């Protein structure tokens, strides 16, 4: 009987070993057989690449192996896999990385087999970028493909966990560009990420969840990353802020800024820490931008003051109408339709603020007047609603008065027909 039991346990052991190793091999086998990960999965960084990590990689999911980039023979075990004869390259040198990636990614015919809609000009663009140019001059600190995209757990850009997904781009760039020690000697500031994080564009992305909001690559390009020149930064902003750019183009400021090499929009709005513009920008306080160049009392100062005054006027009118509508609504009046008109009033304020970029008071006045018309109308409708409410209350007062008279009449009549003030005693 003991033998039988032993036999049973032994069978169980063999069975579990078989199942376990089959499982182990099947996990590894799912990714295309690769003995590299057998060792490298157990090593310490920087040589560590675990199967779990590599399973996340888009290249691995498409069927590529370690040998696709590093060469060698993935079917051999141990150090035989890293045979020079089989083309083993070991760690790729930094300055060779772009060409290595480009070997596939710039080959349109090759990429068509995997994802026909992927672009294949990344390497060409990279060569025009600041990063690419400096790499060609021998700078190996500069960013190459793997610095932004990652290497063994590389995800496509539309994967939100990817280092180059719109949500993460700024963070990825900041790994070098905010590192003061790393950036020593390059002569550019390292506060861009800090400034951008405080900006309204960053806000749009992270708080409002608007993935179309601009991040570093939107204005600087991704593979062809370079700062836009001072004469072209306006064009960059114009891709979204069309009207402001059009008006600026027709305005006096364009020629003026160009002649002294000032970069258009950035002068008043800055580049990285673009904050939500307020009317204070038109004022004379610390946030004022006009008075940085213009002299108090000159023609432009007067125009500025006029525009600011008109804006304040409209703002006050819209706010007043808002308050009246809110009062009407809270006392129970239906003002839904008026609110839709009032939305147009709010829009007119936005429109007027855009028109400021023409720097012509007449144009701004036009928008202000249109807005004031709406605000006056909605204010009147709000007041009408309040007047109607008062009419209802007066009507209520009247009816309540009549009801009181009736109640009094009934009371007296009861007393009359029953005699003594009733304890409920009835007249017989």
């Amino acid at each position, binding site marked *: 009987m003991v033998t039988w039991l032993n036999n049973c346990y032994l069978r169980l052991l063999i069975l579990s070993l078989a199942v376990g190793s089959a499982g182990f091999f099947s996990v590894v086998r799912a990714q295309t057989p690769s003995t590299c990960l057998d060792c490298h999965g157990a090593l310490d960084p920087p040589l560590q690449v675990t199967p779990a990590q590599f399973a996340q990689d888009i290249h691995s999911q498409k069927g590529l192996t370690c040998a696709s980039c590093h060469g060698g023979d993935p079917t051999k075990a141990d150090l035989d896999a890293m045979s020079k004869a089989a083309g083993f390259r070991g760690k790729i040198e930094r300055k060779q990385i772009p060409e290595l990636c480009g070997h596939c990614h710039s080959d349109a015919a090759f990429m068509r087999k995997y994802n026909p809609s992927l672009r294949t000009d990344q390497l060409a663009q990279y060569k025009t970028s600041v990063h690419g140019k400096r790499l060609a001059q021998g700078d190996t600190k500069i960013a190459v493909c793997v610095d932004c995209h990652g290497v063994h757990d590389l995800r496509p850009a539309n994967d939100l966990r990817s280092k180059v997904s719109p949500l993460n781009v700024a963070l990825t760039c900041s790994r070098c560009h905010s590192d003061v020690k790393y950036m020593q000697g390059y002569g550019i500031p390292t506060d861009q990420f800090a400034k951008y994080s405080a900006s309204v564009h960053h806000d749009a992305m992270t708080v409002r969840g608007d993935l179309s909001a601009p991040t570093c690559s939107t204005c600087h390009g991704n593979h062809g990353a370079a700062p836009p020149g001072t004469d072209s930064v306006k064009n960059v902003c114009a891709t979204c802020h069309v009207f402001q750019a059009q008006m600026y183009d027709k305005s006096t400021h364009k020629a003026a800024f160009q002649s002294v090499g000032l970069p258009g929009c950035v002068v008043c709005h800055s580049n990285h820490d673009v904050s939500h513009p307020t009317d204070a920008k038109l004022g004379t306080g610390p946030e004022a931008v006009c008075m940085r160049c213009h002299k108090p009392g000159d023609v432009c100062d007067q125009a500025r003051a006029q525009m600011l005054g008109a804006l304040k006027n409209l703002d006050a009118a819209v706010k007043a109408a808002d308050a009246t509508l809110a009062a009407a609504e809270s006392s129970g009046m239906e003002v839904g339709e008026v609110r839709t008109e009032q939305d147009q009033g709010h829009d007119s304020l936005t429109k007027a603020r855009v028109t400021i970029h023409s720097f012509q008071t007449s144009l701004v006045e036009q928008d202000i007047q249109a807005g004031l018309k709406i605000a006056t109308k909605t204010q009147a409708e709000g007041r009408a609603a309040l007047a109607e409410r008062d009419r209802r209350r007066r009507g209520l007062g009247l009816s309540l008065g009549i009801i009181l*008279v009736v109640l009094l009449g009934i009371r007296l009549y009861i007393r009359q027909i029953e005699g003594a*003030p009733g304890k409920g005693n009835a007249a017989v």
Partner: protein
Amino acid sequence: MAADSSSQPQPPRRRIVELLLGGGLLASFGSFIYPVLRYLVPPPVAELGGDQVVAGKAEELKPNSAKIFRFGSRPGLLIRNTDGSYRALSATCTHLGCIVQYRSDLQEIWCACHNGLYDLNGRNVSGPPPRPLEVYDVHVRGDEVLVSLKRGA
């Protein structure tokens, strides 16, 4: 005082009470009937504007032009195509809610706020808008252009 009023009939007082009661009752009935009578008279504007609206007159728009109209509490965009037929969509941009406009030069719908573009089927083709515009049904009845929500809404 209690015993007095019933043992000594006082006609004037009686009459006052009866007048008070009768008059009060009549006045109260009047105050109920008056609103009801006013209520029964149909208001001048008979249409609700929820299901279907008259977006415009048939010959109001030239081909390859558009107008904004009110659809309930939302803005709508009525476009007359180059072949004379009509289409209507929601005019609220799906990005940040600005009112879109028709660009006859591009024959596409454009949002001035951040340069978003939609094709004539409302699909968001370029720029920030994340979703297409809602499309409405359009019928021409006589000389009126009627816009309604899509069947099965």
